[in-house]
């Protein structure tokens, strides 16, 4: 019964989304406040309907309702409860439903944030967001119905792909989707600005929180995905330049550029047209990512061919929105007035350079990802574009960008002084050089690029600290004064300092991997192998039974300087329902470094073992968390605070634009 309710709610959401688009949009053109006021209500109603549908699917999964195809194919009665819930989006249909849920959530949030988004921008934004919602609701209802029943119902499900039976599935997709889909609302804002033919600092201020939220979540989502791959795959890698990863990296790069160009727009009224273009581009890349991943076109042509309906439908959505977005841009952008001027050497100039490098890096990833597909389609030749290509092309662009970050931060708005900026970063530069030299001395050499990476990472972190210090302390000032001034700095200033330092932390973690050690051995119980500073002793192997799997586990003792410091357990699991084996790497965190053990085949009582010593590896993901923290600090800036869902009565009275009557 609840399954049918869910299905019905989804259809109802589609109808309501049509209302959300048509009536308010017409109202905005006719300046009819009554029609316009339907928009927010409809957006909230759409969200509630999708939430009901989503809840119905969750219930079907949790109660193991095997009369639903989606549950049969992706669940098992013995599966732990957590994975019954996360399994909802561990498949095509459910994940699309989550996509729509987040889409509707953003629509509803804009609908209720009356304080931060002025009319009629809000109405047009909700209308555009509604169009996106319609497209994806139609897609799910037409080609990917999660509520389809099967009769007769089987007694048991086929279980979820064991590799997805992990806490990572609870965290990674929702984070990533909030990021991906968050850019839909930024796209909607951009389209609304183009429809209105007006864009100014008010627009930038209204949109920046949304782009920040999307960026924060996308950053965390990508980092979490990377860590998940790292611990689940069993060979210690954390980024593979896989097309699926590239699909999430591209909107991140474009979104990062967007975040910076919006700053220029908000502060200096410049780069307006470019900012709109970037907003359209970012969401286009999100859609492209969804298409590449969902249609299966990247995995193999066969996946695409087995379900041409789905791939074709998403392709249509893709073409409609990207084409529509750019057509609207081409048509309306000339109407927009260009804003403030600035000297080439200025904060604005530095941010333009930032955008140029980020956009080039993004284009490099895009071309590297789709070039093999295009080449094969055009000439039939098959080539591979893998990590070596991206390391040769993407890395130089990224390094150039990061090297310039501290200088850009030190430049003044409008007209900057290059020499002055250089003087302001000289302390950070000194720290970087000393750090690099110490690294060379301690490690007795090491790859040049890695030493450079250590220096660069230190440079970024030091420059982040320097930014706060320089703005709150001058020579001879008592510390208490400086502290007071530091805490009085705008949160957005703190945010940018912290986020940039976070990038430095990531760079440090990546650079440190040049010193990681890999040992491949076969061990019998009692035998030992060396991994970095540790001796790893195999204590023994033993079988174990889990809720829906059996595993062969092995325990290792880590010995450093003759004393046992820790133990670590790795295992190989067998999931009977899918006849699938997974490796569960044993990871022992010591400070910021990790010992990583993964099991291979066992032969004649000896166990094949891969042991890694990964110094400071945690910095990679902690750095991403620091970046997100910087974003959150910036988001909490008083001037950019997200609209509060229900404004107090007093606030409502003081905001006449929020009431329909005043909008006439």
């Amino acid at each position, binding site marked *: 019964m609840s399954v049918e309710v869910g299905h019905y709610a989804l259809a109802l959401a589609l109808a309501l989304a049509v209302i959300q688009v048509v009536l308010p949009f017409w109202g905005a053109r006719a300046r009819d406040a009554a029609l316009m006021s339907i928009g927010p209500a409809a957006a909230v109603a759409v969200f509630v309907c999708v939430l009901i549908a989503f809840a119905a699917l969750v219930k079907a999964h949790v109660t193991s309702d095997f009369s639903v195809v989606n549950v049969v194919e992706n669940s098992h009665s013995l599966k732990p409860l957590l994975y019954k819930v996360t399994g909802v989006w561990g498949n095509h249909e459910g994940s699309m439903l989550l996509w729509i849920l987040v889409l509707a959530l953003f629509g509803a949030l804009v609908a209720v944030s009356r304080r931060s988004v002025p009319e009629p921008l809000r109405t047009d934004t909700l209308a555009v967001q509604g169009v996106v919602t319609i497209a994806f609701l139609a897609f799910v209802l037409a080609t990917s119905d999660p509520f389809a029943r099967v009769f007769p119902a089987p007694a048991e499900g086929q279980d979820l792909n064991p590799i*997805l039976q992990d806490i990572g599935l609870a965290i990674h*997709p929702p984070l990533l989707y909030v990021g991906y889909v968050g850019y839909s609302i930024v796209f909607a804002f951009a389209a609304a600005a183009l429809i209105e033919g007006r864009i100014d600092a008010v627009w930038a201020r209204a949109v920046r929180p949304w782009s920040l939220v999307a960026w924060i979540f996308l950053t965390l989502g990508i980092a979490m995905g990377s860590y998940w791959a790292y611990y689940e795959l069993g060979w210690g890698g954390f980024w593979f330049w896989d097309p699926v990863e590239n699909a999430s990296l591209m909107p991140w790069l474009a979104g990062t550029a967007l975040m910076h160009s919006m700053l220029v727009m908000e502060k200096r009224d410049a780069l307006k047209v470019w900012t709109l273009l970037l907003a359209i581009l970012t969401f286009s890349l999100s859609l492209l990512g969804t298409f590449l991943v969902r249609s*299966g076109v990247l*995995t193999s042509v066969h996946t695409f061919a087995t379900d041409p309906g789905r791939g074709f439908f998403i392709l249509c959505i893709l073409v409609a929105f990207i084409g529509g977005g750019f057509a609207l841009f081409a048509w309306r952008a000339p109407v927009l007035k260009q804003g403030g001027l600035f000297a080439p050497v200025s904060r604005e100039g530095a941010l333009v350079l930032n955008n140029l490098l980020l956009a080039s890096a993004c284009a*490099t990833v895009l071309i590297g990802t789709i070039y093999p597909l295009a080449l094969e389609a055009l000439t039939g030749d*098959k080539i591979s574009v893998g990590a070596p*290509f991206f390391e*040769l092309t993407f890395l130089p662009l990224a390094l150039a960008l990061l090297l310039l970050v501290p200088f850009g931060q030190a430049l003044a708005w409008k007209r900057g002084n290059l020499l002055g900026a250089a003087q302001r970063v000289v302390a950070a530069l000194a720290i970087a050089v000393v750090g690099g030299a110490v690294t060379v001395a301690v490690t007795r050499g090491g790859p040049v690029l890695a030493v450079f990476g250590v220096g660069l990472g230190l440079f970024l972190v030091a420059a982040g600290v320097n930014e706060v210090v320089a703005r709150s302390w001058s020579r001879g000032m008592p510390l208490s004064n400086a502290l007071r001034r530091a805490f009085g700095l705008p949160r957005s200033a703190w945010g940018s300092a912290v986020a940039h330092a976070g990038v430095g932390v990531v760079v440090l973690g990546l650079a440190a991997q040049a010193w990681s050690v890999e040992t491949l051995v076969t061990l019998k119980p009692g035998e030992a192998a060396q991994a970095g500073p540790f001796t790893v002793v195999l204590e023994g192997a033993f079988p174990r039974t889990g809720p829906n799997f059996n595993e062969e586990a092995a325990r290792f003792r880590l010995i450093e300087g003759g004393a046992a410091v820790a133990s670590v357990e790795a295992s190989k699991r067998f999931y009977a329902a899918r006849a699938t084996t997974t490796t569960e790497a044993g990871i022992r965190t010591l400070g910021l470094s990790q010992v990583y053990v993964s099991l291979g085949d066992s032969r004649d009582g000896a166990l*094949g073992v891969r042991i890694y010593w990964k110094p400071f590896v945690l910095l990679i993901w902690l750095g991403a968390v620091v970046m997100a923290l910087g974003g959150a600090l910036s988001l909490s800036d008083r001037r950019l605070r997200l609209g509060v869902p229900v404004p107090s009565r007093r606030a409502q009275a003081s905001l006449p634009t929020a009431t329909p009557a005043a909008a006439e």
Partner: protein
Amino acid sequence: MRCRRWGIAGVMLLAVTASLPAVALQPDEVLADRQLEARARDISAGLRCLVCQNQSIDDSDAPLARDLRLLVRERLQSGDSDRAVRDFVVSRYGDFVLLKPPFKLDTAILWASPLLVLLAGAVAIVIGRRTRRPPPPPDLSPAEQAKLDAILNEER
């Protein structure tokens, strides 16, 4: 689909049917000669596992990747140079097996694209600045000049 890689990288995506227990390079494949082994690792990191999604044979657990790893080591032991080994594998499987696409007519655009995009962007910025520069203020008309002179003289 044999590679567990895609399963995880594709995360919440399509359900992957089966995966294999073994992990990537196995201890029994490792050559005793350390230098030779290092060269083998280097070569395998650049060769694609043909049945996988953008994964090198060094990282892949597919049986085909294992065969290729053994092949690489066999050739090295028989005295081939790194280049000869790569060429041999390419002659059997085509350019598709190279994770770093070779520079050819086919791939010229691919390799040139980062630089082209960067240059095109830089040119666009310069042109954009040129066209957006505000026109210089028009010269004063004789009447305005006279008025200005009058004001200046008055002050003096």
